[in-house]
């Protein structure tokens, strides 16, 4: 099974690209992705020779690879790239031959996607007939023909695909497909958007992998910067627009340091600050998230470089100057001093949930419960303790439902006091911060957050249960 020439995850033989060519390749891919080229499908027929065709395909893929590198240090480009590559993949996959589709599915899913016929063999039961993908008479006729070697090809037969349930949790929820013995079954046609989503997921993780290597590999960082610069040109700049990104307010000054304000910060940023304090490490996109936040809340670049220098664990033996020159890449980038020279604004909750860190989307429910219990534990007044506990239960319940925006909305009332009967939906961290700053904390704390686990051995006899009904099953 061979992957089709256009498949962007395919390995390209000669991948050394000169700097002049980089610009051409990058822009070529941008034009293709933006629908500015007539040939979206890349068909061999339109080329004189196979070689020409392959050269064109290789160049397309190299362009894709370069964009990935650029996307690794710019989440706006990343969002745009994932969306448009997803669309292109969808069109090209749909138009592919059966054998090419099989090769792609094999690449994307391995053993976790098989044909309906293969599933029938494994279960020793004709699932195609059972779930009315073919009628029994037609199936019998085909079997006879195939057995007598008259019918070799499978044209005209509907392609039925089985994907393991673990790969499609959203689809399971909606009960949109037949589920049988742990496989969801549908025609390849009906599963196209499911497959597209998985392709986008894999592309996202590849971009993040490059992101993780950016700082330790200065050459990669330089490459990323120069590609971003090409994208700033007049002909490409207007094309790079993520469909869903929305930028609202762009700047809110904090009164005092981040640490002093930590409880009124959006919970996602509280998490990141705790994490960087505790471990000295954030993932690539998390660093972006916190870095931009520190910038838009008024921290100058020099101070931010120092902030990371003090917190990081991988800078042992490095002077501040060395640190700023080498690892400070992302921070300088955020302030528009590298690459595309874009002055970054804070990403929306949608982008954060998609790529970065959202408290209610990415934390374990138990972690969320514990965080809330820790705060409640430090509240002085019993009445406030009680009312916070009621809201905490709502937050936990929203977290279970994977309804992060609602959970965040309740968290805002948890921190600032009960908002009017219909609090707004939180869709941007700065929207949260503005409201939290206006209202201020509703409670006073007994002591500063210590980060110690609450539930230790042999506590005093009167220790109350830490929202225990949330943690254990009450049966």
């Amino acid at each position, binding site marked *: 099974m061979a992957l089709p020439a256009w498949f962007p995850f395919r390995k390209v033989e000669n991948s050394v690209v000169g700097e002049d060519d980089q610009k051409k390749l990058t822009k070529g891919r941008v034009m293709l992705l933006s629908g500015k080229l007539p040939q979206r499908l890349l068909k061999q027929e339109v080329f004189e020779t196979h070689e020409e065709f392959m050269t064109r395909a290789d160049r397309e893929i190299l362009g894709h690879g370069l964009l990935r590198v650029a996307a690794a240090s710019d989440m706006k480009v990343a969002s745009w790239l994932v969306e448009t590559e997803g669309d292109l993949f969808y069109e090209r996959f749909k138009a592919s031959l059966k054998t090419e589709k099989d090769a792609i599915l094999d690449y994307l899913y391995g053993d976790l996607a098989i044909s309906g016929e293969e599933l029938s063999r494994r279960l020793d039961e004709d699932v195609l007939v059972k779930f009315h993908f073919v009628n029994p008479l037609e199936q019998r006729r085909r079997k006879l023909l195939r057995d007598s070697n008259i019918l070799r090809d499978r044209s005209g037969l509907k392609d039925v695909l089985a994907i393991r349930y673990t790969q499609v949790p959203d689809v399971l929820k909606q*009960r949109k497909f037949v589920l049988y013995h742990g496989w969801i079954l549908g025609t390849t046609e009906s599963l196209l958007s499911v497959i597209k989503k998985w392709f986008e997921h894999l592309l996202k993780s590849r971009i993040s992998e490059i992101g993780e290597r950016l700082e330790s590999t200065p050459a990669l960082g330089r490459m990323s910067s120069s590609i971003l610069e090409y994208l700033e040109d007049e002909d490409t700049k207007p094309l790079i627009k993520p469909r869903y990104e929305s930028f609202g307010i762009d700047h809110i000054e904090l009164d005092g340091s981040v640490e002093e304000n930590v409880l009124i910060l959006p919970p996602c940023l509280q998490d990141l600050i705790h994490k960087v304090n505790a471990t000295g490490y954030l993932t690539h996109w998390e660093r972006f998230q916190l870095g931009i936040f520190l910038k838009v809340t008024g921290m100058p670049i020099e101070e931010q470089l120092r902030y990371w220098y003090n917190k990081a664990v991988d800078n042992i033996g490095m002077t501040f100057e060395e640190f700023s020159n080498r690892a400070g890449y992302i921070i300088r980038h955020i302030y528009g001093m590298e690459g595309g020279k874009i002055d970054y604004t804070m990403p929306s909750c949608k982008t954060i949930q998609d790529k970065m860190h959202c408290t209610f989307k990415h934390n374990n429910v138990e972690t969320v419960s514990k965080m809330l219990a820790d705060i409640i534990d430090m509240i002085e007044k019993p009445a406030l303790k009680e009312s916070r506990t009621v809201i905490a239960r709502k937050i936990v319940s929203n977290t279970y439902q994977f309804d992060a925006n609602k959970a965040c909305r309740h968290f805002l009332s948890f921190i600032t006091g009960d908002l009017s009967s219909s609090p707004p939906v939180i869709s941007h961290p700065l929207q949260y911060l503005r409201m939290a700053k206006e209202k201020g904390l509703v409670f006073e704390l007994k002591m500063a957050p210590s980060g110690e686990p609450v539930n230790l*051995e042999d506590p005093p006899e009167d220790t109350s249960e830490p929202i225990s009904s949330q943690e*254990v*099953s009450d049966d």
Partner: protein
Amino acid sequence: MTDNPNPDDQSDKKVVFKPSISDEQLKTYYSDHFDIKLLWKVLDRESFPRREFGFDRTGHYFTRNKSFSQPEDLKEYMSIYPIRAAYAGAIYADPVRTKTKKYSAFTIHDTEWVGRELIFDLDASDYDPVRQCSCKGRDVCEICWGLMQDAALIMDETLRIDFGFKKLQWVFTGGRGYHCWVLDKETLTLNQEQRSGLVNYMQLINDPGGDQRIEKINNDSILLKERIFRMLTERFVLETKAKVFEEIGIKKTARATMVKKIEQKLYQKIIDIIPQKIPHNQFFDLMVKYRYARIDHKVTIDTRRLIRLPGSVHYHTGYVGQYIDNPESFYPEDAKHIQDITG
């Protein structure tokens, strides 16, 4: 046990709980009668030392982040302290411990999560808005226990047929419901999103304590739909009060005809039981609301949650949580009771 308890007759028999249990009885139970080997029915031996346990000790405080290098140590711990409730958590990369005089704490947040069985929780109190008896909260009787039996029956088949799971262990919690442990190896590492997908596939009642909206089931979920009709219809008609059927316009006489059809087996297809002018989907939704499984999704989704340890005593009832093979025919009175064991 009568076959078809009549829901319109209010003299239902409640399971009688005998709650006054002494600390001594608890200790005796765990030292002399708690069969630790039975735990291998649900817990994996190799990872036992890295399993989190949690306990409600003497009702005063709750402790978790405990692990034991071997099962005998767990048994000993439970024989020394009066344990009002015992729970098993997830498996981690290292053993966990609470703070002692000698050592600092090493909690589940200090180590890596490794795995957790896939568990479903059914609880009679989640049926409060639709129970046909006079039970509320912790009570159960033979009428509402039937709801637990039906839920288990339908979930068991769904897990085996739709998901293809093979190793299911049902457990009576000792209280008012069942746990189902799915022990197929692949389930151990499912993440929260995957578990959420799984439980939501089966969950058909939104907001079970509130407006109880029933989710639409389309023809792609034909197996589930067929199963619900096949497994629930008869008992739904026989064990639901006449006035419930009036919600969709089935009058007393029409309901009596349904009952007669069932009792005298006067139908070929199950669907023939439904009066002709009543749309099937209306009947289906009503049946789902009153009789279909109400799964506590939190227990399934949270991969670090503590779950009642099978074989431990339920302090509020005195019943011993018990491994069962036939949840569809089990009744709480069949379970062992600590008073009978320890005198």
